């Protein structure tokens, strides 16, 4: 496995000498590509016999709007107890009426992630392509290179509103006919906007604003877990929380 990954890493670096983002990531290789070069890179990945990524395993959008944000409002103990965490508007407790104030990002908000598989070399590569404009993210379509990108791109458009330049039929795919909004964006409420019911007077199905209350059962927290720091000094983590202070007795 190690040698195979190394050979592929070298082959990729040889094929794209200008791209310095090619690096191993767990058991596969990751690279970043600008939208302008995507088609060119995709063709090379597909056609170059040393790479031969002939199958597109997966294509998906990611919205980085609230990356690294937690819902835990305070680090110290307080009298407000558990509910303190859920009083603020966060991605989990969002309703349609309150707009979520998204943090200012220093990088593009929408990223399209491609997982490619090379059957000849038994390797996977992850290609990340950040769509430049947050208000109107556009990425070229890779359907000419991998035909099965069709539905995946429709899905990414439907859920994230990412536009794929050159897609022949960019319709919604998973959401309802006439759906408004892009549900997987971080500023789209988890409970949705409308609900559907059968109206016995009108004798048809009607839409109405949602009646359920959003709630967060377990707040989103980010612990500075010392286990995951690469060069953490032992005993460094004692200050954070109860679980942190307990060093693992079984290890």
């Amino acid at each position, binding site marked *: 496995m190690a040698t195979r990954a190394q050979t592929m890493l070298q082959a990729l670096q040889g094929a794209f000498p200008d791209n310095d983002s090619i690096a191993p*990531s*767990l*058991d*596969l290789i*990751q690279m970043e590509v600008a939208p302008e070069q995507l088609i060119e890179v995709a063709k090379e990945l597909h056609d170059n016999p040393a790479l031969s990524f*002939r*199958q*597109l*395993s*997966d294509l*998906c959008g*990611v*919205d980085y709007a609230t*990356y*690294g944000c*937690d819902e835990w409002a305070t680090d110290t103990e307080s009298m407000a107890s558990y509910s303190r965490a859920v009083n603020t508007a966060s*991605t*989990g407790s969002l309703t349609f009426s309150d707009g979520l104030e998204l943090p200012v990002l220093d990088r593009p908000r929408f990223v399209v*992630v491609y*997982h490619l598989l090379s*059957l000849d070399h*038994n390797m*996977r590569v*992850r290609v990340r392509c950040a769509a430049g404009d947050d208000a109107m993210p556009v990425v070229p379509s890779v359907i000419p290179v*991998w*035909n*099965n990108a*069709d*539905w*995946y791109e429709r899905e990414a458009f439907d859920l994230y509103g990412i536009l794929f330049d050159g897609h022949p039929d960019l319709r*919604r*795919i*998973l*959401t*309802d006919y006439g759906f408004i909004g892009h*549900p*997987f964006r971080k500023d789209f409420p*988890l409970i949705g906007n409308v609900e559907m019911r059968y109206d016995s007077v009108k004798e048809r199905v009607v839409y109405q604003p949602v009646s359920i209350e959003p709630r*967060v059962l*377990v707040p*989103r*927290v*980010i*612990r500075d*877990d010392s*286990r*995951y720091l690469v060069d953490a000094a032992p005993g460094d983590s004692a200050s954070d*929380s*109860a*679980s942190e202070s*307990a060093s*693992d*007795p*079984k*290890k």
Partner: protein
Amino acid sequence: MPEIRNYTLNFGPQHPAAHGVLRLVLEMDGEVVERADPHIGLLHRGTEKLAESKPYNQTIGYMDRLDYVSMMCNEHGYVMAIEKLLGVEVPLRAQYIRVMFDEITRILNHLMWLGAHGLDIGAMTVFLYCFREREDLMDCYEAVSGARLHATYYRPGGVARDLPAQMPQYESSRFTSKSAAARLNERRQGSMLDFIDDFVQRFPGYVDEYETLLTDNRIWKQRTVGIGVVTPERALQLGFTGPMLRGSGIEWDLRKKQPYEVYDQLDFDIPVGTNGDSYDRYLVRIEEMRQSNRIIQQCVEWLRSNQGPVLTEDHKIAPPRRDEMKGDMESLIHHFKLFTEGFCLPEGEAYAAVEHPKGEFGCYLVSDGANKPYRLKVRAAGFPHLAALDEMARGHMLSDVVALIGTQDIVFGEIDR
């Protein structure tokens, strides 16, 4: 002279042959399909978005409900993605249990597929036969997890509990007479492994029964041979995986090529088709059931003679035992933190894929260091298959569309997610 126009036909979503909620808009020229436009999403529940709002362990149950006929394989893909990011070791016994249940799940899935596919294209009996065997396997699910379908059995770092020492038995009731219960209990006298072992002995005979009914059946062959032929090049280009890819003659199985758990220590073969038609895919799946049977047999043998933990001892990820929790402060803290907050994953991304009965089931996990996933993308095996329905159905008759939906082994839980 009257104008000849194409006819647009709406198929489903409430049609027994649509295997769930597929709405298909077919453009017909007489009885020949000119274009098929599947409308999906009628079962879209936003599983991936829901996962973003829950601690990692609470999403395992949602995975069962993706492909609801191969529950544990879905869980496997998900927990493997978590384990990859955490870098946690899974105990060997848990790995064998997982492999065994993956293969039980594969048989469950293929039996469901065979029954439904047979029913769709006119073979009634095989459906009843398949469900007879599914019953035994679902009893295994129930014995080990308490649920016949949505097991929620796998955990990051192992499985929820060890195999039961005693196979649960039937009691007589309003629905089961005393004699019927006694007959059912005959095979359930020993441990669960005894029961599975007994099943494994019987199962090849059952597969022979299905084959007697179908493999040389004239009607079956007329309905499947030469229907939906996919060349190996197109299969790759269309993103096919699993039996759909192997039916087209490409030998690719993640269990062999990128072995996970203990698959590299087990002895099994990968069946490959030659013509890429529905009949070859049927043969591939039938042979896969026999191979799964072999794998289960090897797992049973190993599990009989090797005891050990089934869940990691790292209590940051897996809860401590109940009696430990009652008496030990440290364990109590771990227990409390795990069940109120869950565990945090290191920042990063992971893609884990398993050989699901339908193909490659992948989980792409993005973590920003929180106790909930930042983004979870499920790569459903059936999604690219159904996307290719248009290409496969062109030029075929309307009734062949039903055979194609059957041969693709479509389940909407995973396609719509």
